[in-house]
């Protein structure tokens, strides 16, 4: 573990071992340095449940308003993720009903259909690379469905989000200095796309989220065109990679733990509990950033105004102080207060969408392909940051 946490207690979150199996490093961090420091930047990294939750619930001290948005090809902050209460609350009141559990459940049959179609494409082969064959396309089709956009635009969006999140992908010769221009160009394509889509809906309203946003009002005033574009940007960036990564983490765990998998196959009613427990244990969105607005002390360590703090959700979710038998994966855990979707006012807007997609995907997959394993001789590869299983070769009998 020395390579993830060095002798002076500095943490390298971008180490591949950490992306593959972060739980041992989490335990060491909570024990040795609950408020640690990142390698290179020296920025604070917070790992105890109590501290992480406190920070999430105090946006006036741990703010989401940061100057970093340009790194993602945006021209303005994404709404509502990169703005704080009270302005953020007004947007959440408007957006929450469109992402409520009830609304998201209405999409379940379409997601199940897409999942079956994807599996139909490879089931007879007895193998697939799970990330590209299933985990990437499924959330994207759900996103298109939700917004009321044509499925034929799937590849446009997949390229777009890769250019923004992973500008190095498919560009072996490109120097990292140029990544920012790749991102900005993708950001501009994204704004253009949604400008056109909104124009079409203003001319011919439909029964979809974009039409609803184009008519939405806050305190009697219409949202501006930029407001809507800034919401759409967030939906694209937050809604695709996160569920993709969670699907990959779940399947890696279940492929490596056949006894647990068999329980889900024999008893599909355990799936919702398994989704929660794997969100806790795997925490694919490992951390969220916050800007420290004024000096504050956590676990005896002083954080300074202006520092960029990393709240380690994964470490909080495996904290023995707050979860009984925290290091055991228990699909029937009675009390599961994980913060995989964050907490406080910025609780993930898409959490009910994600939960529905994960449940449906797990149900459909195990109905069709109950027995599978990681391809012998192969090792899954994970990306740092958000833990996407970039390479997950699965095999099964046909």
């Amino acid at each position, binding site marked *: 573990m020395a390579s993830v946490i060095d002798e002076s207690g500095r943490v390298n979150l971008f180490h591949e071992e950490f992306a593959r199996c972060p739980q041992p490093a989490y335990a060491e961090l909570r024990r040795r340095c609950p408020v640690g420091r990142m390698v290179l930047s020296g920025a604070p990294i917070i790992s105890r449940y109590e501290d992480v939750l406190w920070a999430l619930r105090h946006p006036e001290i741990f703010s989401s308003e940061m100057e970093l948005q340009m790194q993602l090809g945006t021209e303005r902050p994404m709404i509502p993720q990169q703005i704080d209460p009270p302005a953020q609350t007004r947007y959440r009141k408007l957006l*929450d009903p469109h992402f*409520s559990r*009830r609304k998201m459940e209405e999409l379940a049959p379409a997601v199940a259909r897409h999942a079956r179609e994807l599996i139909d494409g490879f089931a007879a082969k007895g193998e697939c690379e799970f990330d590209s064959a299933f985990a990437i396309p499924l959330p994207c089709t759900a996103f298109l469905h939700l917004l009321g956009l044509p499925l034929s635009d799937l590849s446009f969006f997949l390229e777009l989000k890769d250019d923004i999140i992973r500008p190095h992908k498919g560009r072996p010769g490109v120097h990292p200095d140029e990544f920012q221009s790749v991102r900005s160009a993708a950001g501009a394509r994204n704004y253009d796309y949604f400008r056109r889509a909104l124009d079409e809906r203003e001319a011919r309203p439909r029964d979809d989220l974009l039409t609803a946003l184009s008519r939405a009002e806050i305190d009697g005033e219409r949202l501006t065109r930029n407001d809507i574009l800034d919401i759409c940007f967030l939906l694209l960036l937050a809604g695709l990679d996160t569920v993709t990564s969670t699907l990959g983490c779940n399947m890696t765990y279940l492929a490596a733990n056949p006894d647990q998998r068999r329980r889900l196959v024999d008893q599909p009613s355990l799936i919702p509990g398994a989704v929660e427990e794997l969100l806790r244990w795997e925490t694919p969105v490992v951390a969220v950033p916050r800007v420290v607005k004024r000096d504050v002390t956590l676990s005896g360590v002083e954080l300074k105004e202006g520092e960029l703090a990393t709240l380690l959700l994964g470490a909080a979710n495996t904290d023995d102080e707050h979860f009984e038998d925290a290091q055991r994966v228990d699909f029937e855990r*009675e009390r599961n207060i994980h913060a995989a979707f964050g907490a*406080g006012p910025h609780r993930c807007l898409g959490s009910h969408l994600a939960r529905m997609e994960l449940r449906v995907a797990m149900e459909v997959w195990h109905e069709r392909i109950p027995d599978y394993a990681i391809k012998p001789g192969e090792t899954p590869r994970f990306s740092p940051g958000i833990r996407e299983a970039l390479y997950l070769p699965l095999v099964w009998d046909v």
Partner: protein
Amino acid sequence: MRIRLDRAKCVGHGRCYVLAPDVFEDDERGHCVVRKEEVPKEFEEQARRGEQNCPEGAIALVD
């Protein structure tokens, strides 16, 4: 058993009305609404699950 909900703490995780649907329901925003403040005996176990699984600690049970 009575339920005391701190609405200011609720941010809409939705665990309560999923795990204890006879005791809690969701409003339009997906925030918690208590169906009946006085919990019927047969739903006390549900009420406990809802209370235990609120990540914001917004639900309290009073005997």
